[in-house]
Protein backbone atom coordinates (compact mmCIF):
# COMPACT_ATOMS: atom_id res chain seq x y z
CA UNK A 1 0.00 0.00 0.00
CA UNK A 2 2.78 2.39 1.01
CA UNK A 3 4.77 1.73 -2.14
CA UNK A 4 1.68 2.33 -4.27
CA UNK A 5 1.11 5.77 -2.71
CA UNK A 6 4.74 6.73 -3.09
CA UNK A 7 4.69 5.76 -6.71
CA UNK A 8 1.56 7.80 -7.26
CA UNK A 9 3.13 10.90 -5.63
CA UNK A 10 6.22 10.46 -7.76
CA UNK A 11 4.06 10.18 -10.84
CA UNK A 12 2.04 13.20 -9.79
CA UNK A 13 5.13 15.23 -9.12
CA UNK A 14 6.55 14.25 -12.48
CA UNK A 15 3.26 15.02 -14.17
CA UNK A 16 3.04 18.46 -12.57
CA UNK A 17 6.34 19.68 -13.81
CA UNK A 18 5.65 21.99 -16.68
CA UNK A 19 1.95 21.08 -16.73
CA UNK A 20 -1.05 22.89 -15.46
CA UNK A 21 -3.55 20.11 -16.20
CA UNK A 22 -3.61 16.35 -16.03
CA UNK A 23 -4.39 13.81 -18.74
CA UNK A 24 -7.71 12.05 -18.34
CA UNK A 25 -6.26 8.52 -18.39
CA UNK A 26 -3.85 9.13 -15.60
CA UNK A 27 -4.82 8.93 -11.98
CA UNK A 28 -5.55 12.31 -10.41
CA UNK A 29 -2.49 13.62 -8.65
CA UNK A 30 -2.54 13.61 -4.89
CA UNK A 31 -1.23 16.78 -3.53
CA UNK A 32 -1.06 18.29 -0.17
CA UNK A 33 -1.66 21.94 0.08
CA UNK A 34 -2.35 24.00 3.15
CA UNK A 35 -5.95 25.09 3.42
CA UNK A 36 -6.06 28.79 2.61
CA UNK A 37 -8.20 30.84 4.98
CA UNK A 38 -11.32 32.08 3.23
CA UNK A 39 -13.36 35.12 4.00
CA UNK A 40 -16.23 32.93 5.11
CA UNK A 41 -14.19 30.90 7.59
CA UNK A 42 -16.05 30.48 10.84
CA UNK A 43 -13.00 29.20 12.78
CA UNK A 44 -12.89 31.21 16.03
CA UNK A 45 -9.08 31.23 16.07
CA UNK A 46 -8.70 33.06 12.79
CA UNK A 47 -9.76 36.76 12.74
CA UNK A 48 -11.22 38.15 9.60
CA UNK A 49 -8.84 40.42 7.71
CA UNK A 50 -10.32 43.63 6.46
CA UNK A 51 -9.31 44.78 3.04
CA UNK A 52 -9.43 48.42 4.20
CA UNK A 53 -7.10 48.21 7.20
CA UNK A 54 -4.97 51.30 7.76
CA UNK A 55 -1.91 51.11 10.05
CA UNK A 56 -1.65 53.96 12.56
CA UNK A 57 1.67 55.66 13.07
CA UNK A 58 1.67 56.66 16.78
CA UNK A 59 4.47 59.20 16.98
CA UNK A 60 4.25 59.44 20.77
CA UNK A 61 4.53 55.69 21.21
CA UNK A 62 7.37 55.53 18.71
CA UNK A 63 9.20 58.36 20.40
CA UNK A 64 8.69 56.68 23.77
CA UNK A 65 10.04 53.43 22.38
CA UNK A 66 12.99 55.34 20.96
CA UNK A 67 14.01 56.50 24.45
CA UNK A 68 13.28 53.26 26.26
CA UNK A 69 16.96 52.30 26.21
CA UNK A 70 18.18 55.88 26.67
CA UNK A 71 17.30 56.56 30.28
CA UNK A 72 20.73 57.04 31.88
CA UNK A 73 23.60 59.51 31.37
CA UNK A 74 26.93 58.69 33.06
CA UNK A 75 29.55 61.06 34.48
CA UNK A 76 33.25 61.16 35.24
CA UNK A 77 34.51 61.40 38.83
CA UNK A 78 33.92 64.82 40.47
CA UNK A 79 32.41 66.01 37.20
CA UNK A 80 28.98 67.21 36.13
CA UNK A 81 29.78 67.69 32.45
CA UNK A 82 27.40 65.97 30.04
CA UNK A 83 29.79 64.32 27.61
CA UNK A 84 29.15 64.47 23.89
CA UNK A 85 28.67 60.68 23.90
CA UNK A 86 25.28 61.32 25.39
CA UNK A 87 24.03 63.99 23.01
CA UNK A 88 21.99 61.36 21.15
CA UNK A 89 20.14 60.59 24.39
CA UNK A 90 19.42 64.26 24.97
CA UNK A 91 18.10 64.67 21.45
CA UNK A 92 15.94 61.54 21.56
CA UNK A 93 14.22 62.86 24.68
CA UNK A 94 13.81 66.31 23.19
CA UNK A 95 12.21 64.77 20.10
CA UNK A 96 9.83 62.79 22.23
CA UNK A 97 8.83 65.74 24.35
CA UNK A 98 8.19 67.74 21.23
CA UNK A 99 5.91 65.05 19.84
CA UNK A 100 4.18 64.21 23.13
CA UNK A 101 3.44 67.42 24.97
CA UNK A 102 2.06 65.59 28.00
CA UNK A 103 5.46 64.21 28.96
CA UNK A 104 7.31 65.75 31.90
CA UNK A 105 10.60 64.43 33.21
CA UNK A 106 12.17 64.09 36.61
CA UNK A 107 15.95 63.99 36.30
CA UNK A 108 17.44 62.04 39.22
CA UNK A 109 21.12 62.82 39.82
CA UNK A 110 23.40 60.37 41.62
CA UNK A 111 27.02 60.13 42.77
CA UNK A 112 29.30 57.29 43.80
CA UNK A 113 29.66 56.46 47.49
CA UNK A 114 32.80 58.46 48.20
CA UNK A 115 32.47 61.61 50.31
CA UNK A 116 29.81 63.18 52.48
CA UNK A 117 26.06 62.78 51.98
CA UNK A 118 25.13 66.46 51.67
CA UNK A 119 27.99 67.48 49.38
CA UNK A 120 27.17 64.50 47.17
CA UNK A 121 23.51 65.51 47.18
CA UNK A 122 24.57 68.88 45.81
CA UNK A 123 26.89 67.25 43.28
CA UNK A 124 24.08 64.98 42.08
CA UNK A 125 21.91 68.09 41.77
CA UNK A 126 24.57 69.70 39.58
CA UNK A 127 24.52 66.63 37.35
CA UNK A 128 20.75 66.62 36.95
CA UNK A 129 20.77 70.37 36.28
CA UNK A 130 23.44 69.88 33.61
CA UNK A 131 21.18 67.37 31.86
CA UNK A 132 18.27 69.79 32.21
CA UNK A 133 20.39 72.50 30.64
CA UNK A 134 21.35 70.20 27.76
CA UNK A 135 17.66 69.47 27.17
CA UNK A 136 16.77 73.15 27.21
CA UNK A 137 19.43 73.84 24.62
CA UNK A 138 17.56 71.56 22.21
CA UNK A 139 14.23 73.15 22.90
CA UNK A 140 12.71 71.49 25.95
CA UNK A 141 10.91 74.03 28.18
CA UNK A 142 12.44 74.25 31.65
CA UNK A 143 9.05 73.85 33.36
CA UNK A 144 8.69 70.34 31.93
CA UNK A 145 11.84 69.11 33.63
CA UNK A 146 12.54 68.88 37.37
CA UNK A 147 16.16 68.19 38.31
CA UNK A 148 16.48 66.43 41.68
CA UNK A 149 19.22 64.49 43.43
CA UNK A 150 19.69 61.35 45.46
CA UNK A 151 23.35 62.05 46.10
CA UNK A 152 25.01 58.81 47.09
CA UNK A 153 21.94 57.34 48.78
CA UNK A 154 20.60 55.17 45.95
CA UNK A 155 23.44 53.32 44.19
CA UNK A 156 22.65 50.77 41.51
CA UNK A 157 25.95 48.96 42.04
CA UNK A 158 26.96 48.02 45.57
CA UNK A 159 30.68 47.37 45.04
CA UNK A 160 33.55 49.48 46.39
CA UNK A 161 35.66 49.77 43.24
CA UNK A 162 35.78 51.96 40.16
CA UNK A 163 33.59 49.54 38.20
CA UNK A 164 30.75 50.07 40.68
CA UNK A 165 31.46 53.77 41.18
CA UNK A 166 31.29 54.45 37.44
CA UNK A 167 27.82 52.84 37.27
CA UNK A 168 26.60 55.01 40.14
CA UNK A 169 27.73 58.39 38.77
CA UNK A 170 24.63 58.99 36.69
CA UNK A 171 21.45 60.90 35.95
CA UNK A 172 18.32 58.88 35.33
CA UNK A 173 15.68 60.44 33.09
CA UNK A 174 12.30 59.34 34.41
CA UNK A 175 8.77 60.15 33.37
CA UNK A 176 7.02 62.16 36.05
Amino acid sequence: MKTYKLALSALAAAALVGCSSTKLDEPAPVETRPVAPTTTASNANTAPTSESKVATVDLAAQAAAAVSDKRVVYFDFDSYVVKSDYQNIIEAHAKRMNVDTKVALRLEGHTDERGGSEYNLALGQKRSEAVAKALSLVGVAAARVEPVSFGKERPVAEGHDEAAWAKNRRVELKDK
Partner: protein
Amino acid sequence: MSAKKLNSPLPALTRRSLLGAAAALSLPALAQFRVEISGVGATQLPIALPDFRDEARSGQPVAAIIRADLERSGQFRIIDAPAGLSENSNPAWSEWRGKQADALAAGSAAKLADGRVDIRYKLWDVVKGQDLGGEAHAVAPDDVRLAAHRIADTIYQKLTGERGVFATRMAYVTKAGGRYSLRIADADGEGGQVALGSPEPIISPAWSPDGKELAYVSFETRKAVVWVQDLSTGRRRSIADFRGSNSAPAWSPDGQTLALTLSREGGSQLFLMNRNGSGLRRLTQSSAIDTEPAFAPDGKTIYFVSDRGGSPQVYRMPVSGGTPERVTFSGNYNISPAISPDGRSMAYVTRNGGGVFRVCVMDLASGNVQQISDTSEDESPSFAPNGRLLVYATRAGGRDVLMTSTLDGRIKAKLISTLADVREPTWGPFGR
Protein backbone atom coordinates in the same frame (compact mmCIF):
# COMPACT_ATOMS: atom_id res chain seq x y z
CA MET B 1 11.20 60.89 87.60
CA SER B 2 13.00 62.21 90.63
CA ALA B 3 16.14 61.38 92.51
CA LYS B 4 16.00 61.39 96.27
CA LYS B 5 19.07 62.09 98.31
CA LEU B 6 19.74 59.13 100.60
CA ASN B 7 19.49 60.02 104.27
CA SER B 8 17.51 57.11 105.70
CA PRO B 9 17.99 53.37 105.64
CA LEU B 10 16.20 51.32 102.97
CA PRO B 11 12.62 50.51 103.94
CA ALA B 12 12.10 46.86 104.77
CA LEU B 13 10.80 44.95 101.77
CA THR B 14 7.29 43.68 102.33
CA ARG B 15 6.39 40.11 101.49
CA ARG B 16 4.24 41.35 98.61
CA SER B 17 7.01 43.30 96.97
CA LEU B 18 9.37 40.34 97.38
CA LEU B 19 6.92 38.16 95.52
CA GLY B 20 6.57 40.81 92.88
CA ALA B 21 10.32 41.02 92.54
CA ALA B 22 10.66 37.27 92.16
CA ALA B 23 7.97 37.11 89.52
CA ALA B 24 9.45 39.95 87.54
CA LEU B 25 13.01 38.62 87.58
CA SER B 26 14.28 39.05 84.05
CA LEU B 27 17.58 38.92 82.23
CA PRO B 28 19.18 42.18 81.19
CA ALA B 29 17.76 43.34 77.84
CA LEU B 30 19.95 42.25 74.91
CA ALA B 31 22.13 45.20 73.98
CA GLN B 32 21.93 46.24 70.36
CA PHE B 33 25.51 47.50 70.25
CA ARG B 34 28.82 45.82 70.82
CA VAL B 35 31.23 48.40 72.26
CA GLU B 36 34.99 48.35 71.76
CA ILE B 37 36.81 50.98 73.79
CA SER B 38 40.41 51.69 72.90
CA GLY B 39 43.14 54.09 73.87
CA VAL B 40 44.71 55.60 76.94
CA GLY B 41 43.68 59.03 78.15
CA ALA B 42 45.92 61.80 79.39
CA THR B 43 44.48 61.95 82.91
CA GLN B 44 42.17 59.20 84.00
CA LEU B 45 40.66 58.85 87.43
CA PRO B 46 40.64 55.22 88.59
CA ILE B 47 37.22 54.25 89.91
CA ALA B 48 35.85 50.96 91.21
CA LEU B 49 32.17 50.31 90.57
CA PRO B 50 31.09 46.77 91.40
CA ASP B 51 27.79 45.35 90.13
CA PHE B 52 24.90 46.71 92.17
CA ARG B 53 23.32 44.34 94.66
CA ASP B 54 20.26 42.63 93.14
CA GLU B 55 20.61 44.64 89.97
CA ALA B 56 19.16 41.76 87.93
CA ARG B 57 15.81 42.72 89.45
CA SER B 58 15.95 45.97 87.56
CA GLY B 59 16.07 44.24 84.19
CA GLN B 60 19.28 46.04 83.20
CA PRO B 61 23.00 45.65 83.95
CA VAL B 62 23.02 48.95 85.85
CA ALA B 63 26.64 48.99 87.01
CA ALA B 64 27.93 47.89 83.59
CA ILE B 65 26.04 50.77 81.96
CA ILE B 66 27.61 53.26 84.39
CA ARG B 67 31.10 51.77 83.99
CA ALA B 68 30.82 51.94 80.18
CA ASP B 69 29.63 55.56 80.32
CA LEU B 70 32.54 56.61 82.52
CA GLU B 71 35.02 54.69 80.40
CA ARG B 72 33.76 56.17 77.12
CA SER B 73 34.27 59.65 78.52
CA GLY B 74 38.00 58.98 78.41
CA GLN B 75 38.40 60.51 81.86
CA PHE B 76 38.03 57.37 83.96
CA ARG B 77 39.80 54.04 84.26
CA ILE B 78 37.72 51.20 85.62
CA ILE B 79 39.24 49.18 88.49
CA ASP B 80 38.08 45.56 88.76
CA ALA B 81 35.80 45.15 91.72
CA PRO B 82 33.93 42.02 92.80
CA ALA B 83 30.24 42.43 93.64
CA GLY B 84 29.21 42.42 97.25
CA LEU B 85 28.96 46.07 98.17
CA SER B 86 25.94 48.33 98.23
CA GLU B 87 25.18 51.90 99.22
CA ASN B 88 24.93 50.70 102.84
CA SER B 89 28.43 49.28 102.97
CA ASN B 90 31.32 50.60 105.00
CA PRO B 91 34.23 50.29 102.60
CA ALA B 92 37.61 49.21 103.93
CA TRP B 93 39.81 52.03 102.65
CA SER B 94 43.06 50.13 102.80
CA GLU B 95 41.56 47.48 100.53
CA TRP B 96 40.49 50.00 97.90
CA ARG B 97 43.67 52.04 98.08
CA GLY B 98 45.51 48.78 97.62
CA LYS B 99 43.58 48.28 94.38
CA GLN B 100 44.71 51.75 93.23
CA ALA B 101 41.16 53.12 93.16
CA ASP B 102 40.70 56.83 93.82
CA ALA B 103 36.92 56.58 93.93
CA LEU B 104 34.34 53.90 94.69
CA ALA B 105 30.63 53.70 93.98
CA ALA B 106 28.25 50.93 95.01
CA GLY B 107 24.52 50.50 95.00
CA SER B 108 21.49 48.27 94.80
CA ALA B 109 18.25 47.75 92.90
CA ALA B 110 14.82 46.75 94.21
CA LYS B 111 11.33 46.34 92.80
CA LEU B 112 8.75 48.48 94.55
CA ALA B 113 5.19 47.40 95.24
CA ASP B 114 3.84 49.77 92.59
CA GLY B 115 5.99 48.17 89.91
CA ARG B 116 8.66 50.85 89.82
CA VAL B 117 12.32 50.03 90.23
CA ASP B 118 14.29 51.70 93.03
CA ILE B 119 17.97 52.20 92.26
CA ARG B 120 20.26 53.57 94.98
CA TYR B 121 23.94 54.21 95.16
CA LYS B 122 26.62 55.97 97.13
CA LEU B 123 29.92 57.51 95.97
CA TRP B 124 33.08 57.63 98.07
CA ASP B 125 36.41 59.46 97.70
CA VAL B 126 38.83 56.64 98.48
CA VAL B 127 41.87 58.88 98.82
CA LYS B 128 40.24 61.01 101.50
CA GLY B 129 38.09 58.22 102.88
CA GLN B 130 35.05 60.49 102.43
CA ASP B 131 31.36 59.90 101.68
CA LEU B 132 30.49 62.06 98.65
CA GLY B 133 26.77 61.40 98.91
CA GLY B 134 24.29 59.26 97.06
CA GLU B 135 20.89 59.19 95.44
CA ALA B 136 17.78 57.06 95.06
CA HIS B 137 16.01 56.84 91.69
CA ALA B 138 12.51 55.33 91.66
CA VAL B 139 11.60 54.79 88.01
CA ALA B 140 9.33 52.90 85.66
CA PRO B 141 11.02 49.71 84.38
CA ASP B 142 11.45 51.32 80.93
CA ASP B 143 13.49 54.11 82.49
CA VAL B 144 16.08 51.99 84.30
CA ARG B 145 18.74 52.63 81.66
CA LEU B 146 18.04 56.35 81.91
CA ALA B 147 18.43 56.17 85.69
CA ALA B 148 21.79 54.44 85.25
CA HIS B 149 22.92 57.17 82.83
CA ARG B 150 21.79 59.86 85.29
CA ILE B 151 23.82 58.22 88.04
CA ALA B 152 26.82 58.18 85.70
CA ASP B 153 26.27 61.90 85.05
CA THR B 154 26.21 62.68 88.78
CA ILE B 155 29.34 60.65 89.49
CA TYR B 156 31.05 62.31 86.52
CA GLN B 157 30.10 65.78 87.70
CA LYS B 158 31.14 65.18 91.30
CA LEU B 159 34.55 63.86 90.30
CA THR B 160 35.42 66.07 87.30
CA GLY B 161 33.46 69.22 88.03
CA GLU B 162 31.94 69.08 84.54
CA ARG B 163 28.45 68.26 83.33
CA GLY B 164 28.06 64.68 82.08
CA VAL B 165 26.36 63.77 78.81
CA PHE B 166 25.42 60.17 79.55
CA ALA B 167 21.72 60.91 79.98
CA THR B 168 21.53 62.80 76.66
CA ARG B 169 20.21 61.26 73.47
CA MET B 170 21.48 60.64 70.01
CA ALA B 171 19.65 60.44 66.72
CA TYR B 172 20.92 58.23 63.92
CA VAL B 173 19.69 56.36 60.85
CA THR B 174 19.83 52.59 60.49
CA LYS B 175 19.54 50.67 57.26
CA ALA B 176 18.57 47.03 57.24
CA GLY B 177 16.87 44.92 54.64
CA GLY B 178 16.23 47.84 52.34
CA ARG B 179 14.47 49.77 55.08
CA TYR B 180 15.62 53.00 56.72
CA SER B 181 14.83 53.95 60.32
CA LEU B 182 15.47 57.28 62.01
CA ARG B 183 16.11 56.34 65.62
CA ILE B 184 16.37 58.25 68.89
CA ALA B 185 18.65 56.46 71.34
CA ASP B 186 20.60 56.94 74.53
CA ALA B 187 24.06 58.46 74.23
CA ASP B 188 25.50 54.93 74.32
CA GLY B 189 23.45 54.09 71.25
CA GLU B 190 21.10 51.74 73.08
CA GLY B 191 17.37 51.89 73.51
CA GLY B 192 16.78 53.27 70.03
CA GLN B 193 13.14 54.11 69.35
CA VAL B 194 12.05 54.56 65.77
CA ALA B 195 10.87 58.09 64.97
CA LEU B 196 10.41 57.36 61.26
CA GLY B 197 10.52 54.15 59.22
CA SER B 198 10.73 54.45 55.44
CA PRO B 199 11.56 52.47 52.31
CA GLU B 200 13.51 55.50 51.05
CA PRO B 201 16.65 57.11 52.50
CA ILE B 202 16.67 59.50 55.45
CA ILE B 203 19.68 61.79 56.02
CA SER B 204 20.85 64.83 57.98
CA PRO B 205 18.85 64.63 61.23
CA ALA B 206 19.21 67.82 63.29
CA TRP B 207 18.04 68.33 66.88
CA SER B 208 16.15 71.50 67.81
CA PRO B 209 18.04 73.20 70.67
CA ASP B 210 15.25 72.31 73.13
CA GLY B 211 15.46 68.65 72.16
CA LYS B 212 11.73 68.45 71.37
CA GLU B 213 11.92 68.33 67.59
CA LEU B 214 14.06 66.76 64.94
CA ALA B 215 14.53 68.17 61.46
CA TYR B 216 15.61 65.70 58.77
CA VAL B 217 15.72 65.05 55.03
CA SER B 218 13.48 62.29 53.67
CA PHE B 219 13.38 60.92 50.14
CA GLU B 220 9.95 59.33 50.57
CA THR B 221 8.50 61.41 47.69
CA ARG B 222 11.42 60.50 45.38
CA LYS B 223 13.26 63.76 46.07
CA ALA B 224 14.91 65.43 49.04
CA VAL B 225 12.38 67.21 51.30
CA VAL B 226 13.02 68.69 54.77
CA TRP B 227 10.63 67.72 57.56
CA VAL B 228 10.36 68.83 61.20
CA GLN B 229 8.93 66.22 63.56
CA ASP B 230 7.76 66.56 67.16
CA LEU B 231 9.40 63.64 68.93
CA SER B 232 6.82 62.98 71.62
CA THR B 233 3.74 63.21 69.38
CA GLY B 234 5.16 62.09 66.03
CA ARG B 235 3.40 65.00 64.32
CA ARG B 236 5.46 66.36 61.49
CA ARG B 237 5.36 69.08 58.87
CA SER B 238 7.33 69.49 55.67
CA ILE B 239 9.02 72.86 55.93
CA ALA B 240 10.90 72.79 52.63
CA ASP B 241 9.44 71.02 49.60
CA PHE B 242 10.45 73.37 46.83
CA ARG B 243 11.37 72.55 43.26
CA GLY B 244 14.52 70.42 43.16
CA SER B 245 16.33 69.30 46.32
CA ASN B 246 15.79 70.57 49.88
CA SER B 247 18.36 69.50 52.47
CA ALA B 248 20.94 70.12 55.21
CA PRO B 249 18.69 71.64 57.93
CA ALA B 250 20.49 73.45 60.79
CA TRP B 251 18.86 75.15 63.80
CA SER B 252 19.94 78.52 65.15
CA PRO B 253 20.92 78.34 68.85
CA ASP B 254 17.68 80.07 69.89
CA GLY B 255 15.64 77.57 67.92
CA GLN B 256 13.81 80.25 65.95
CA THR B 257 15.56 79.98 62.59
CA LEU B 258 16.58 77.17 60.30
CA ALA B 259 19.30 77.32 57.70
CA LEU B 260 18.81 75.02 54.69
CA THR B 261 20.29 74.12 51.34
CA LEU B 262 17.77 74.64 48.54
CA SER B 263 18.03 74.26 44.78
CA ARG B 264 14.82 76.17 44.04
CA GLU B 265 16.79 78.95 42.38
CA GLY B 266 19.24 76.62 40.69
CA GLY B 267 22.32 74.94 42.10
CA SER B 268 22.60 74.40 45.86
CA GLN B 269 22.46 77.60 47.91
CA LEU B 270 21.94 78.50 51.56
CA PHE B 271 18.63 79.95 52.68
CA LEU B 272 17.24 80.96 56.07
CA MET B 273 13.67 80.45 57.20
CA ASN B 274 11.67 80.94 60.40
CA ARG B 275 10.92 77.72 62.29
CA ASN B 276 7.29 77.83 61.18
CA GLY B 277 8.31 77.93 57.51
CA SER B 278 7.71 81.63 56.91
CA GLY B 279 10.24 84.30 56.05
CA LEU B 280 12.29 82.45 53.44
CA ARG B 281 15.35 84.47 52.42
CA ARG B 282 18.50 83.59 50.52
CA LEU B 283 21.82 83.83 52.37
CA THR B 284 24.55 82.88 49.88
CA GLN B 285 24.88 84.22 46.37
CA SER B 286 27.23 82.11 44.33
CA SER B 287 27.15 79.86 41.33
CA ALA B 288 28.99 77.21 43.32
CA ILE B 289 27.74 74.52 45.70
CA ASP B 290 27.04 76.11 49.12
CA THR B 291 25.77 73.59 51.66
CA GLU B 292 26.05 72.02 55.16
CA PRO B 293 25.32 75.15 57.23
CA ALA B 294 26.20 75.09 60.94
CA PHE B 295 25.46 77.97 63.35
CA ALA B 296 28.14 79.14 65.77
CA PRO B 297 26.84 79.00 69.39
CA ASP B 298 26.51 82.80 69.54
CA GLY B 299 24.00 82.60 66.69
CA LYS B 300 25.76 85.35 64.74
CA THR B 301 27.95 83.35 62.36
CA ILE B 302 27.19 80.47 60.05
CA TYR B 303 29.85 77.99 59.00
CA PHE B 304 29.24 76.15 55.74
CA VAL B 305 30.82 74.18 52.90
CA SER B 306 31.44 75.82 49.52
CA ASP B 307 33.34 74.79 46.43
CA ARG B 308 33.44 78.35 45.09
CA GLY B 309 37.23 78.12 45.17
CA GLY B 310 37.24 74.98 43.04
CA SER B 311 36.92 72.28 45.66
CA PRO B 312 34.83 71.95 48.86
CA GLN B 313 36.19 73.96 51.80
CA VAL B 314 34.68 75.32 55.01
CA TYR B 315 33.77 79.02 55.07
CA ARG B 316 31.94 81.25 57.55
CA MET B 317 29.83 84.38 57.17
CA PRO B 318 27.59 86.58 59.29
CA VAL B 319 24.00 85.36 59.60
CA SER B 320 22.95 88.89 58.68
CA GLY B 321 24.74 88.54 55.37
CA GLY B 322 28.14 89.56 54.08
CA THR B 323 31.30 88.20 52.52
CA PRO B 324 32.20 84.63 53.39
CA GLU B 325 35.63 84.03 54.86
CA ARG B 326 37.51 80.78 54.22
CA VAL B 327 38.33 78.68 57.28
CA THR B 328 40.03 75.49 56.03
CA PHE B 329 43.28 75.64 54.10
CA SER B 330 44.92 72.25 54.27
CA GLY B 331 43.82 69.63 51.80
CA ASN B 332 41.52 70.03 48.83
CA TYR B 333 38.36 68.49 50.28
CA ASN B 334 37.00 69.64 53.66
CA ILE B 335 33.33 69.14 54.55
CA SER B 336 30.76 68.58 57.33
CA PRO B 337 31.68 71.30 59.85
CA ALA B 338 30.44 71.02 63.44
CA ILE B 339 31.13 73.78 65.98
CA SER B 340 31.81 72.96 69.65
CA PRO B 341 29.37 74.33 72.26
CA ASP B 342 31.97 76.84 73.47
CA GLY B 343 32.55 78.03 69.92
CA ARG B 344 36.29 77.43 70.10
CA SER B 345 36.70 74.23 68.10
CA MET B 346 35.44 72.92 64.81
CA ALA B 347 35.22 69.25 63.88
CA TYR B 348 35.03 68.39 60.19
CA VAL B 349 35.95 65.71 57.66
CA THR B 350 39.00 65.99 55.40
CA ARG B 351 39.86 63.84 52.42
CA ASN B 352 43.50 62.80 52.30
CA GLY B 353 45.32 61.68 49.20
CA GLY B 354 44.18 58.20 48.29
CA GLY B 355 40.57 58.93 49.07
CA VAL B 356 40.80 58.54 52.84
CA PHE B 357 38.18 60.55 54.77
CA ARG B 358 39.10 61.45 58.37
CA VAL B 359 37.61 63.51 61.18
CA CYS B 360 39.74 66.52 62.16
CA VAL B 361 39.45 69.02 64.99
CA MET B 362 40.58 72.61 64.41
CA ASP B 363 41.29 75.14 67.13
CA LEU B 364 39.51 78.13 65.56
CA ALA B 365 41.67 80.77 67.20
CA SER B 366 44.98 79.40 66.01
CA GLY B 367 43.85 77.41 62.99
CA ASN B 368 45.78 74.38 64.24
CA VAL B 369 44.33 71.10 62.98
CA GLN B 370 44.60 67.64 64.43
CA GLN B 371 43.46 64.56 62.56
CA ILE B 372 41.88 62.51 65.32
CA SER B 373 40.81 59.31 63.63
CA ASP B 374 42.64 56.40 62.10
CA THR B 375 39.74 54.97 60.12
CA SER B 376 39.28 55.90 56.47
CA GLU B 377 35.59 56.53 55.72
CA ASP B 378 34.54 59.01 58.41
CA GLU B 379 31.37 61.10 58.12
CA SER B 380 29.15 63.56 60.02
CA PRO B 381 31.03 64.49 63.22
CA SER B 382 28.80 65.90 65.98
CA PHE B 383 29.74 67.36 69.40
CA ALA B 384 28.33 66.19 72.72
CA PRO B 385 26.66 69.12 74.51
CA ASN B 386 29.48 69.35 77.06
CA GLY B 387 31.98 69.76 74.22
CA ARG B 388 34.13 66.92 75.54
CA LEU B 389 33.24 64.16 73.09
CA LEU B 390 32.50 63.73 69.43
CA VAL B 391 30.39 61.12 67.71
CA TYR B 392 30.84 60.28 64.04
CA ALA B 393 30.03 57.56 61.56
CA THR B 394 32.67 55.39 59.98
CA ARG B 395 33.21 52.03 58.40
CA ALA B 396 34.87 49.10 60.14
CA GLY B 397 34.93 45.45 59.23
CA GLY B 398 32.64 46.05 56.27
CA ARG B 399 29.95 47.63 58.46
CA ASP B 400 28.76 51.19 58.98
CA VAL B 401 29.38 51.89 62.67
CA LEU B 402 29.38 54.78 65.14
CA MET B 403 32.45 56.06 66.95
CA THR B 404 32.64 58.33 69.98
CA SER B 405 35.97 60.00 70.66
CA THR B 406 37.60 62.47 72.99
CA LEU B 407 38.58 65.67 71.18
CA ASP B 408 42.23 64.67 71.18
CA GLY B 409 41.36 61.35 69.60
CA ARG B 410 42.93 59.42 72.45
CA ILE B 411 39.98 57.44 73.75
CA LYS B 412 37.60 55.99 71.22
CA ALA B 413 34.58 53.78 71.59
CA LYS B 414 33.36 51.90 68.55
CA LEU B 415 29.65 51.14 68.67
CA ILE B 416 28.89 48.23 66.37
CA SER B 417 25.23 47.43 65.91
CA THR B 418 24.34 43.78 65.87
CA LEU B 419 21.24 44.54 63.84
CA ALA B 420 21.98 47.07 61.12
CA ASP B 421 24.29 49.55 59.46
CA VAL B 422 24.27 52.83 61.39
CA ARG B 423 24.84 56.29 59.89
CA GLU B 424 24.20 60.03 60.27
CA PRO B 425 24.68 60.34 64.05
CA THR B 426 23.83 63.62 65.75
CA TRP B 427 24.20 64.25 69.47
CA GLY B 428 21.16 65.73 71.23
CA PRO B 429 21.16 68.60 73.75
CA PHE B 430 21.13 68.45 77.56
CA GLY B 431 17.80 67.64 79.15
CA ARG B 432 15.04 65.40 77.80
